[in-house]
């Protein structure tokens, strides 16, 4: 995808475009992420959602939606505070996101509103303790969680 196409999306949604080597990163606010992903996905050419990555930065969860067109990655990025980890789901316009959002929900505790798989777990066992922090966050201490699950 060309820089201009992404730049125009960024201007419309008051986001920022960063170029990292060959790939482009579009940083938007969490309220705009659904529209950003939809517009990037529908650009001419064969866009493919690679995956959705979560990362714990300490105070917030950083989310990357990786898209691949055929020459370089285009990533849409947003951030949600840990105090309110909610985002609209993009699975209505990008159906492939269904399982990737479920994975981020399990690992980071981010709820994607509108995704039908939010109620059930994808990867964590059903016996995962309710009070325990999600496993990939910085607060999660594996020893404590094992004790909670009575594995020690």
């Amino acid at each position, binding site marked *: 995808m060309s820089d201009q196409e992404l730049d125009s999306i960024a201007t419309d949604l008051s986001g920022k475009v960063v170029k*990292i*080597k060959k*790939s482009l990163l579009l940083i938007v606010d969490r309220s705009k992420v659904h529209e950003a992903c939809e517009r990037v996905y529908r650009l001419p050419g*064969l866009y*493919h*959602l*690679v*995956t959705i*990555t*979560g*990362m714990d930065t300490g105070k917030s969860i950083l989310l*990357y939606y*990786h898209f*691949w067109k*055929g*020459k370089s*990655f285009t*990533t849409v990025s947003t951030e949600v505070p840990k105090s309110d980890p909610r985002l609209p789901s993009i699975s209505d316009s990008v*159906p*492939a996101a*269904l*399982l*990737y959002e479920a*994975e981020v929900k*399990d*690992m980071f505790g981010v709820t994607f509103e509108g995704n039908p798989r939010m109620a*059930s*777990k*994808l*990867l*964590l*066992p059903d*016996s*995962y303790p309710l009070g325990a922090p999600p*496993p*990939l966050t910085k607060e999660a201490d*594996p020893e404590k*969680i*094992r004790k909670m*699950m009575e*594995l020690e």
Partner: protein
Amino acid sequence: MEYSAENLVPFGPVHPSLKEPEYFRLVLEGEKIVEVTPRIGYVHRGIERAAQDRTWVKNIYLFERICGICSFAHSLAYTEGVESLTEFEIPSRAKYIRLVIAELERIHSHLLWLGLIGYWTGFDSLFMWIWKDREHVLDLLEAITGNRVHKSYSTFGGVRKDLPPGIEAKLMEEMMFIRNRVTYYEQLVKSEETLIARTHGVGKISQETALRLSPVGPLLRCTGIARDIRSEDPYAAYGEIPPVVMTSTAGDIESLLTIRLAEVMDSCRMIVDAIRSMPSGPTKVPFPRIVPAGEAMYHVEAPRGELFYFIHSTGAAKPERVKIRTPTLANLLTAVEMLKGRPLADVPVVLTGMDPCFGCMDRVAVFDVDKSKEWYVTGEQLKKLGIEYYGKRERE
């Protein structure tokens, strides 16, 4: 929609047809499957979390053990991903050798898969014969890298050691052998009635479904979409030796058979080309201990499809975050679509058709009550495992 209990058929988590535990909740109407809900996570090992506690080099050994069949694809994606964070130029010879090993792995994976299809269609002879032919490939891998499965061959800066002397002639000879055998299997697949009956028109998906659900690998190519990471975004030596992208328009399991066999033939061709034009020179350059800060997104074409690594480095001795998305997770939704409308008897063939590797798919969370109690895969355990494995092999 509410279904009565008689319609629910649980498939898994431990089931004779599955090599790895999975759970599929199938809802039947009469004999046809109308709804499929997969539940995965039974072989979670917490690898993404474990990677955060290990140094960069130790993680090579961790990531290659995500999967036995596509082990080199994982180690290649990780090592090349980390190399892309630096400005180092990897020697040409190392890139060509990486291509040879990656294609050998593709051959062995596809032959394994075809054997499994033979097995699940009741064609045990095909299973035995193919796995015997596959032994030739595994012997080659062992001769070059020292191991059949977890090769630990790709490392930062190149490959761990050079090709042994005289292996080039052996490779040419074995590629000839594999080509002859695959020619025979291609004819078999076209003429054997049981196979045709179990795979022709079974699990048919359209191109729109593929465009909607983003599958990868042969499952995507069987609907007519010609995408292959090796030609779209070349890594290793694929820029100099590009693959021929195999597609079909049928979208069923039979087309998967023909595509994978054609890919094996093409892999043989690529290995022969690589050996003929192999540059001389070093196979490894010294690489810095500390990886510079940055983010890398790297993907390779594993035998099952696109394998994606996201690596975030803060310049520390250990990675801050490594995210891995394996091809089977991308293909799961499409496989579910393939099952809808099929009778229950098609379940093993269709599920095997997507070439599932659930061990690849279930990573990240460690808290798996079904597996053993030991959570940390410690250095001691990996070392003991290696000693036991070689001890057993020596005694045999």
